C-alpha cells in the first residue's frame, strides 16, 4: 500500500467512523402517551442491554447531565430523559413534583421495559420521589417482572422539616418498593449523616439498599455555579460514577 492509498484509506475510514458515531449518538425525541398527557423523552440510544431512565424535572438542560448521557451512550448504556414538567405544563418549582401523576411515571417505566433492556432508574434531590413512586406502582402492576435497580443521588425525601430530637419522617413512598437501591450522597453536606436512617426506611418492603459517600463534594455539585475543583472533577467523571453505581446494583442482583 503506497502512502497516497494509505492517506485516502485513513481519511475515508475516519469520515465513515465520525458519521456513524454522530448517527449512533444522535439525540432522538420520542413522545409517549402517559395517562392524560404526552411526555417527550430525549433518547441517547445505545446498543447495549442496559437502559437508564432519568427523571430530570428541568428537562435535563444542565450541560453536565447531557454530557453524561452522551458519554454513557458511547459506552453502550442507553439513556432516556423524559421532560415531565412540560408534559404537565408545570413550572420549575419543587411543588410541581406532586402534580406529576404516578400513572405517567408508570407509563414511562412500561415504555422503557418494552425495549427488553435491563431498566435502571435515576434521579437526584427531591426528584428521587418520582423514581420511588413510579417504581412502586409499576411493581404492583407487574408482579412477575422486576426493574434492575435505582440510583438515588442526594435523595431529599423528608415529609416535613426535620425536628431536632425526633426521628425523621419520610414521604409515604419511602419503603414501598422492592427495587435494589444505591444511594449517593456528598461528603460535604449534613445529609450524609442521615443516610443510615434513610437506608433503613427504604429497606422496609425488602429493597436491598447500599449507600456510598462521594468524597469532597456538596449536594447537587453538578448543578453548582460555585463548584470547587473536586466538584468539577467529579462532574466531569459523572458517567463513570453512574457506571460504578450500576455495577454495585448488578452485584446486588447477582447475589440475590
Amino acid at each position, binding site marked *: 500500500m503506497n502512502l497516497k492509498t494509505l492517506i485516502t484509506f485513513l481519511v475515508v475510514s475516519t469520515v465513515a467512523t465520525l458519521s456513524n458515531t454522530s448517527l449512533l449518538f444522535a439525540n432522538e425525541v420520542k413522545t409517549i402517551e402517559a395517562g392524560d398527557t404526552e411526555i417527550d423523552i430525549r433518547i441517547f440510544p445505545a446498543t447495549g442491554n442496559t437502559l437508564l431512565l432519568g427523571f430530570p424535572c428541568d428537562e435535563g438542560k444542565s450541560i453536565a447531565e447531557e454530557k453524561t448521557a452522551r458519554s454513557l451512550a458511547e459506552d453502550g448504556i442507553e439513556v432516556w430523559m423524559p421532560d415531565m414538567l412540560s408534559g404537565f405544563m408545570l413550572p420549575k418549582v419543587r411543588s410541581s413534583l406532586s402534580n406529576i401523576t404516578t400513572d405517567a411515571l408508570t407509563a414511562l417505566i412500561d415504555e422503557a421495559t418494552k425495549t427488553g433492556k435491563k431498566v435502571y432508574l435515576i434521579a437526584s434531590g427531591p426528584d428521587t420521589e418520582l423514581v420511588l413512586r413510579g417504581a412502586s406502582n409499576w411493581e404492583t402492576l407487574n408482579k412477575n417482572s422486576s426493574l434492575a435497580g435505582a440510583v438515588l443521588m442526594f435523595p431529599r425525601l*423528608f415529609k416535613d*422539616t*426535620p*425536628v*431536632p*430530637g*425526633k426521628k*425523621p419522617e419520610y414521604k409515604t413512598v419511602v419503603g414501598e418498593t422492592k427495587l435494589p437501591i444505591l444511594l449517593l450522597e456528598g461528603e*460535604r*453536606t*449534613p*445529609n*450524609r*449523616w*442521615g443516610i443510615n*436512617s434513610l437506608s433503613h426506611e427504604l429497606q422496609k418492603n425488602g429493597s436491598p439498599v447500599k449507600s456510598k459517600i462521594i468524597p469532597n463534594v*456538596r449536594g447537587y455539585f453538578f448543578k453548582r455555579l*460555585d463548584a*470547587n475543583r473536586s466538584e468539577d472533577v467529579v462532574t466531569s467523571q459523572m458517567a463513570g460514577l453512574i457506571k460504578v453505581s450500576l455495577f454495585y446494583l448488578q452485584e446486588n442482583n447477582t447475589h440475590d
Partner: protein
Amino acid sequence: MIKSLFLIALSFCLTLNAQAANLKPFTANTPTPALKLTDLHGKHHDLKDYKGKVVLVQFWATYCGPCKKEMPSMNKMRSKMGDTPFKILAVDMGETEAEVKQFVKEVKPEFSILMDESGQSINDWQVFAAPSNFIIDPAGNIRYTLFGGVEWDSDELINKLKALAIN
C-alpha cells in the same frame, strides 16, 4: 406612575429582606437535644450549662458560602446584644481541625467554634441544611429556627433575641 411603580418595587424588596431575616417559631413539643462538644481550644461545652442565657446554636461548615458570609455579622451581633446574657455555640459539621483552623484564621469568628467530627450532634439535632440555626431561650427550650444565611446584627433579629431574654 413611575414613582408608584418604584415605591411598589421598593416595598417588595423591603418585604423580601424582612422575610429573609425571619426566625421561624419552633412549635414542636420535643425536648431540646443534648449538645456536649469540645471547642477548638479544647474547652468542653454543655448546652445545659448555659441555662439563663439566650443561646444561638448554629451548625455550619467551611464549605458553606452563606456560613462564611454571615460570620462577621455574628461577631457584631455579640456586641449589639449588650448586657443581655447571650452565647453563640457554632458547631462545625464533621470537618477536620486543620480545615476549621484555616477557616478561623481567615474569617476570625469571635465566638465558640465547637467540633463534631463524629456527626453525633448533627444526627441528634436532625440537621439537614447549612447553616442551620436554633435559638434557645434561657430555660433551655428551642424557640426559633432559621435555615440559611442571614445578617445576624439586624435590629429586627437583635430585638427578638433580647425580648426572649426578658420573657
